[in-house]
């Protein structure tokens, strides 16, 4: 990100020498490495970090171009410096817990709504009071006390071969378990957090027994053992290895934009039966021990502004959390209107463990 200054109090611990000092100030992690060694050897203690130095520390599971663009825009708009720790899923939660006192995050961002809920259960967030955020987001996309706020949404959809499947057969997730699809479904492994969250939502809607039967039904309909990512499932449909793939919408949107030949003859189906299409929310909250809670709130408000929100659909093909935002993305525009399932986060988060158990019992690898 931006240049960072070597703090005067810390510099006393390291040997002097012009080239060395210059290198240190240009390379903060190297500086800390030397400092750490220096600390161990000389047992001198570091200067306390200034809590209000305009640095925003973000811990995030997102590593997308849209987010890098967002940090840059925020730095330019506010003059703040953004420092980012990237870690996937649960690693992020463990890392936040471990760094709670040494490097507390100001903002924590996750990619799965269940993980937002888990992080909240672990007490990693603090309440944020922002009339602006309450006004921008529907109640289903934010925590009632402002612990976290949705940034984007991802739809779990079905991509199918138009010449082999009738769209009417795919208006319900239940259809995937139909005997007619035996040997015709492609999906990722049951360890995929998006499959887990989908089943967790089905447990909430249908109850455990029906959800369990569904998981067994889909598992026995799989055309091949789960392998690869969502994009690979779509390519398998294109190659004729299967007829329907259960995937997140943005992989199909990306292929439509970047590699249209790869998805010729394929179409996307948004289930409309019951509560509609399962949506997974990626969201952010202010860290419990944040040094700069005000700056953190400003960042979340910026991410949910029109300027911030349009980065997500335009650069990552996700749906913006703020429904009124306009953006330029032909692939998303080509999708039909659909019903977004407004199931609250705690229903998904609390059912995730049961969902994994049902997958294990169903024999969905």
């Amino acid at each position, binding site marked *: *990100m931006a240049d960072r200054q070597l703090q005067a109090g810390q510099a006393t611990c390291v040997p002097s020498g012009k080239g060395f000092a210059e290198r240190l100030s240009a*390379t*903060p*992690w*190297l500086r*800390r*490495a030397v400092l*750490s*060694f220096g*600390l*161990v050897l000389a047992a001198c*203690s*570091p200067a306390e970090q200034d809590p209000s130095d305009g640095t925003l*520390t973000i811990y995030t599971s997102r*590593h*997308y*171009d849209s987010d*890098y663009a967002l940090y840059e825009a925020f730095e330019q708009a506010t003059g703040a410096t953004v*420092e*980012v*720790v*990237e*870690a*996937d*899923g*649960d*690693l992020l939660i*463990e*890392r936040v817990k*471990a*760094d709670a*006192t*040494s*490097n507390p995050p100001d903002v924590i961002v996750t990619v799965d709504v269940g993980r937002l809920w*888990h992080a909240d259960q672990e007490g990693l967030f603090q309440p944020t009071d922002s009339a602006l955020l309450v006004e921008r987001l529907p109640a289903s996309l934010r925590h009632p006390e402002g612990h976290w706020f949705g940034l984007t949404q991802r739809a779990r959809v079905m991509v199918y071969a138009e010449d082999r499947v009738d769209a009417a057969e795919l208006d319900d997730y239940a259809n995937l378990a139909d005997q007619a699809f035996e040997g015709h479904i492609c999906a990722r*492994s049951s*360890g995929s*957090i998006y499959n*887990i969250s989908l089943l967790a939502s089905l447990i909430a809607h249908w109850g455990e027994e029906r959800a369990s039967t569904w998981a067994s039904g889909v598992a026995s309909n799989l055309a091949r*053992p789960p*392998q*690869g*990512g969502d994009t*690979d499932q779509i*390519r*398998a449909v*294109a*190659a*004729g*290895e299967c007829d329907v793939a259960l995937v997140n919408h943005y*992989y199909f949107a990306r292929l439509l934009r970047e590699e249209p030949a*790869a998805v010729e003859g394929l179409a996307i189906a948004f289930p409309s039966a019951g509560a509609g299409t399962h949506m997974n929310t990626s969201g952010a909250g202010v860290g419990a021990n944040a040094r700069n809670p005000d700056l953190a709130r400003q960042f979340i408000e910026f991410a949910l502004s029109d300027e911030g929100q349009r980065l997500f659909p335009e650069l990552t093909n996700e749906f913006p959390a703020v429904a009124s935002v306009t953006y330029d993305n032909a692939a998303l525009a080509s999708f039909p209107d659909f019903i977004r399932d407004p199931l609250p986060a705690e229903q998904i988060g609390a059912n*995730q*463990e049961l*969902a*994994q*158990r049902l997958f*294990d*019992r169903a024999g969905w*690898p």
Partner: protein
Amino acid sequence: MTPMAQPQGVGTDAPPAGTSAWMRLARTMGRRSDPAIVGTLIALVFAAPIIALLVLAFTGDADYLEHIAATRLAGFATSSAGLAILSGGLAALVGTGGAWLVTQYEFAGRSILSWLLLLPLAVPGYVAAYSWYDLTAPGGHFYTGPDGPVPTISGLWGASAIFGLTLYPYVYLLARNAFEAHGRASWDMARCLGAGPLAALRRVALPLVWPAVAAGSALVAMEALADYGVTDFLGVGTLTVGIVRAWSSFGDPQAAAQLAVMLLFATLLALGIERMARGRRQFAENPGSRRAHARTPINGWRALVAQTACLMPLTLGLIIPAGNLALMAIETQPARPVMPALQGTLFLALASAGLALLIGTVSAYALRAGPRFGRMAVRLLQAGYAVPGAVAAIAILALLVLVQDALGTFGGSSAPLITGGSILALLFAYQSRFAAVAILPCENALLKIRRELDEAARMLGSSPAGVMRRVHLPLAARGLATAALLVGVEVMKELPATMILRPFDLETLAVTAHNYASDERLAQAALPALVLLTICIPATAMLNLLRVR
């Protein structure tokens, strides 16, 4: 020997302070500065995360274990065993075969092939898996349909092929050194006494290189067992996949630790069997056999067969997957500069290689001459290689938080010394994870030094440190350098611990490549992956300079 009468059990090491064995050890330390004792202590420190893992495992309940035992445990265990056997077996076959060809026969291109055969080690397994899957899955250049002649690289067989083809250089390196060190004297003798080439190979040559082959294959199997990236992507349900799931889907680090401990014991068992199979044989080398020996010249179709056999693993393990990435990288506009990631990777690799040298040497001493307790500590440290990186990182994180709290209590300062985010934490994690890679070559190098040399030097008035400096180090230098290079390459390729423990502004090539790949943007991942290959290849090639003369 030391006066330590009662070797301690693994589970009882956890509260070290105050136990009488430690007091005695400390007193012994005061009297002698034997490198073996220092080695024991260092091994114990770096084995601490494993002890933390054991504590974590035994503090959890058995809820998840019961669920998984009723559903998928049998499948996990079978896949793990299958993967270890197939990967280790393929690596043993390719590595020993390659080493045999380049040390026993003379054919056109032999010396360059002998050098090139090591290079697939530079390819991280996950990079090879992504690239091969991209080529052979629907939409790939080599895809020939679901029942076509080219199978899609996936599942147990696909993953085993990936591990076998990228990790066989471990076996090759050790086997080649062993073939060269033992020379042809025994082989020629066997042939003179009437044994056919196959019989001589089976009864003379292979038994002599068996320790090397077994040690190399064990490394391959351990790495395959601990892997998550390749197995998850290609759809193999191993125990490690179960471990990561216990944690990611059930939010239960204790359950993950329990499964990890099971994996650990299985690995220790396998290592134990290998040691027992090796028995009491000491493989001190015959000083007279190091003469350059004549290789049998071959030409014509025989040479062609040998050349093809050597080119095969190179093509499949390196040229095809790297070539595919190169094509992708050329066609793709890079999203972010790779320079910071390159710097970070190089720094971590160099620092770790230096540390590994130190730890490998002293641990090897603990094995060679240390007390039984010391040998156990080193074996525990070696088993760390079989702990999945993600689980190891969590154990280390838990341990570091404890240490930090203790320091805060005693020192009155809450300096963020070692918890996540410090380079020290990451370097510590690498050492406890890759110590096995450092210790094996060091151990082999020291084992080859005859004990009579020590005794002679001691009788001539040398101190233990003097023996180490003036006798052992020069003789073992190549083994030690091998250890440093292997760890350097491993660290450059390492993913989970780096992701969890790295400081916020330290980027590495592996992490950058992984982030793009996990976002299913392989084309963007291609450039950092290629740069990673480009620096791993010379490091791997340097291993060639360290061969015995």
